[in-house]
């Protein structure tokens, strides 16, 4: 028991450290996509829903499993999709479009 507990604690602490280090100095432009991306990652809670599904055997258990599954899937699927959508905005504008616009303005 203590072995598993330690193992999990070590994994927890080290992952916290990775998290602290991985997000240093993000340009403010990316703050929102970043938040959304992180939000998608904790959608991993769907794994918990799956594991739970295998353990329940009461009506209440089934209901809770359903709730957990529905919530978690919304989080994970929606999270990744919306993040991806936001990030598609970071394509560089093609010069062909931008330059004429500039001309219009000055003339």
């Amino acid at each position, binding site marked *: 028991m203590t072995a598993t507990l330690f193992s*999990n604690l070590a*994994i927890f602490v080290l*992952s916290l*450290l*990775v*998290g*602290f280090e*991985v*997000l240093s*100095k*993000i*340009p403010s432009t*990316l*703050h929102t*996509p970043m*938040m959304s991306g*992180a*939000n*998608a*990652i*904790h*959608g*991993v*809670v769907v*794994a*918990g829903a*799956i*594991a*739970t599904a*295998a*353990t*329940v*055997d*009461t009506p209440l*258990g*089934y209901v809770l*499993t*359903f*709730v*957990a*599954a529905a*919530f*978690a899937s*919304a989080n994970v699927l*929606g*999270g*990744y999709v919306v*993040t*991806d*959508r*936001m*990030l*598609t905005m970071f394509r*560089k*504008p093609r010069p062909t479009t*931008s*330059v004429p*616009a*500039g001309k219009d*303005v000055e003339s």
Partner: protein
Amino acid sequence: MSTLLLVVGLVFLLSAILFVVGLHQMRTPSSARRGNLLSAAGMAVAIAGTTVYAVVASGGHAWGWIALALGIVLGGGFGAVRARTVKMTDIPQLVSLFNAVGGGAAAAIAFTGFLNETTSGRVRLDSSIPIVLDVIIGAVSLAGSLVAMGKLQGVIPGRPLQFPGSRLVNTVVAVVFVAAGVLTIVLPHSPVLLLVVLIAALLFGILMVLPIGGADAPVVVSLLNALTGLAVAMAGFVIDNQAMIIAGALVGSAGTILTLQMAAAMNRSVRAIILGGFGTGDAAAPTAGPGAGAENVRQVTVDDVGIQLAYAQHVMIVPGYGLASAQAQHEVAELAKLLTDHGIDVKYAIHPVAGRMPGHMNVLLAEVNVPYSQLLQLDEANAAFETCDVALVIGANDVTNPAARRPGNPVSGMPILNVDHAKSIVVIKRSMSPGYAGIANELFTDPKTGMLFADAKAALTGIITAVKEYVAA
């Protein structure tokens, strides 16, 4: 069996690597999208591993699987559709909603885990403690995120909602869930107690976010996002799933860092936001910039400016006396060329009395062969500011001071460059100290304005390096 455990464990480690590399790549716009996809791949791996293990190891009842499938279809469908159809401007609300349900799921899992406990005696600490923590954090995150969403959406009024004695109520609620939580841990197995914890925590989440102003909502959502991460990690402890522990902890800490950075970028302190929420009176944000009047100044780094320029379409450079005294005309020209080479439209806004002699700026820029076509005189320039993405003010001050439009001050009536009409503004100067006219410039405290406190030459060199980084990719 135990080898299956090892294999699944290794699969989880693989997913961990994918999550981290993904987050790492999301730090740069050019690779951000790929990063998100990598993290999605990590998610797929983690889910696959869990599924295999769950099926092989425990099996379970048909109804459990049906409930799961139903939930996944409905929840996943809803999430995916909303994510595709939401208006760009409504994205924060949606993220907040996804965060809420994430916390809810974590709480539900912990609760189920507690119900599954067969013992009639005290539940083992190494499962009861994470269960209680998970329920508390998850519930706070669920309720809080929903309120924040309401504020962002405008359903709930954005202004801080206080009621007399709210402080007291908060404390009571907090005491309740802490006490109930402790009892749940120390007393014999009792779902009712855990239910009390759940309800109290939900209440607390609502009361926590209600008094927070809508302007601060994004920061709060980011904070609750980190909390959900921790809740998920706790859930991982409950069902002994390492993928959840890793990913949850990652989000917990990364989300915290992100929250601090967001708050800083808005020049607010997280403490002030939350405590302000708790009715201790909204503390004035900490002073950001050097020198006087720096209270509500937003400082930026060369990286921020670099990225802003690299992704702009129309850039206006506003040179002033500072550019001359820093002898940074070569750097300016180099930056302009760099941007133009990457298809960005760059123009200079020349104020007749910028600098210390008439035509000072023209002379300076001619020296480094800036083509005349790029130099806009006052009127052209003011027209161009209307469609300008980034106005880069380099060592100019008085010639940009909106105070000139008002009577009764040293620059009153001086025709100025309407820099404040640009979509966003960056000002490079060494401090908040005033220019020739010796008066403060409200442009520097404009929310659209980012101040880069540095010598013009050094700053430009840094910006050039930064821009190269971003356009290179």
